[in-house]
């Protein structure tokens, strides 16, 4: 059964005019977010995006952008409690949280 997370939250953006159609994003995305249509990338499943940043990191012409990070509640709660900002947290993967992020 397919997993679905919250919809309409991903920060992924494609500047299609810069795209050269190299297909790298299709190659690296682990969630099938892209397809190539008419020699250009197209976002076909935005809500599948987990904001891992692989596509933006590997688009050689900078056509992709995303606020990447790890979707880990432990890290965000740590950030919220210690620094008052969920973005500033780190999760203690080496600690006893057990999560991988």
């Amino acid at each position, binding site marked *: 059964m397919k997993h679905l997370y919250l919809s309409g939250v991903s920060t992924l953006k494609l500047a299609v005019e810069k795209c050269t159609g190299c297909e790298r994003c299709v190659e690296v995305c682990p969630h099938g977010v892209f397809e190539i249509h008419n020699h250009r990338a197209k976002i076909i499943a935005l809500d599948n995006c987990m904001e891992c940043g692989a596509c933006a990191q590997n688009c050689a012409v900078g056509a992709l952008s995303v606020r990447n*990070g790890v979707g880990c509640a432990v890290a965000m709660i740590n950030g919220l409690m210690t620094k008052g900002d969920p973005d500033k947290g780190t999760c203690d993967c080496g600690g006893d949280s057990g999560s991988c992020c």
Partner: protein
Amino acid sequence: MTNDNYSRDKGSGAAIPSAPPVCLLSNISLADRFGSVMCRVSNGFRMKYTVTPGLYTLGNPDRNSPVLVTGNYRLSLNALRVSINDRNAWILIVDTKGINVWCAAGKGTFCTKEIVKQLSACDLKSKIAHRTLILPQLGASGASASKVQKESGFSVRFGPVRASDIPAYLDNNCTASPAMRRVRFSFVDRAKLVPMETIPAFKKAGLFLLIAAVLFGMTRNGIMYGLALSGVLPLVIAGLVALFTGTILSPLLLPFIPGRAFSLKGFVTGLTGAIAIIFLLPICRSTPFLTAFNLVSVPAFSSYLAFLFTGSTTYTSPSGVKAELKIAWPLYLVSAAVSGVLLVLVFVRFRGIL
């Protein structure tokens, strides 16, 4: 954690150019199996389950054999050598601090710089005729193919997500089918992660219950064990149910539980659990305060525990987790406060003060 299959004598480590590659044996030993179980239950063990970075060989690679890059987490390397045990290949292991490639890429330890550094440290160019590296697809969030090419001259292809697909990938002229490019999160994948959720949560809950037992059993003449036990038993049950629904049931049944938000899923399972114990066990509804306590605290605690599981999944986005946190966090604080008040009332009633 080195064993003979991997050890490389300390003096000829990766820092020295053209260190001789070490043979990787393909048969998995009993120790490897033990290691893979230990990694699932002990963080301390997992963090030290490493391999020395450097260039390794699988079978008898020649100048045209493929070069596979991976991190120095031994569990991943074991998976790799099991799945391609009949091939000849070069394995370039970069230092990811003993963490698997995906997590290391997210943290930035599996990165362009490390790969380029390891390439020159091992002097790979002198050993092979081609100039292509196969990187694990899940390393792509840390390493940039174009930058690796620019800095090392090696062109990069990304291999499949799962090591077991590598033979098919190699046979298919280094192309992966769309299915090979997708991460999954099967029942078995989730079941493997459950102990890491459950064990720490149990430890914390145990401490809380111990304190509660002391409070319930305290009298002028010292702690009465009978009193402590009968007072704390309903709390033990509530705690166990929340732990069960939050850290075991929610992860295992994940896609079947209504709602998309993890906090909501955990709430649903927790509420179900709370209602179940209230109906089935008279000691869980002996006072209205206790019933109310169960109805508030069990779903909230279960929701919180399920929410923590977002860090272990393969598909939750940071924006999504943040959106959940925004709504769930104030509700957790309110639930904790209400639970605290109800707990005091349960206690007061139990001690006959009310």
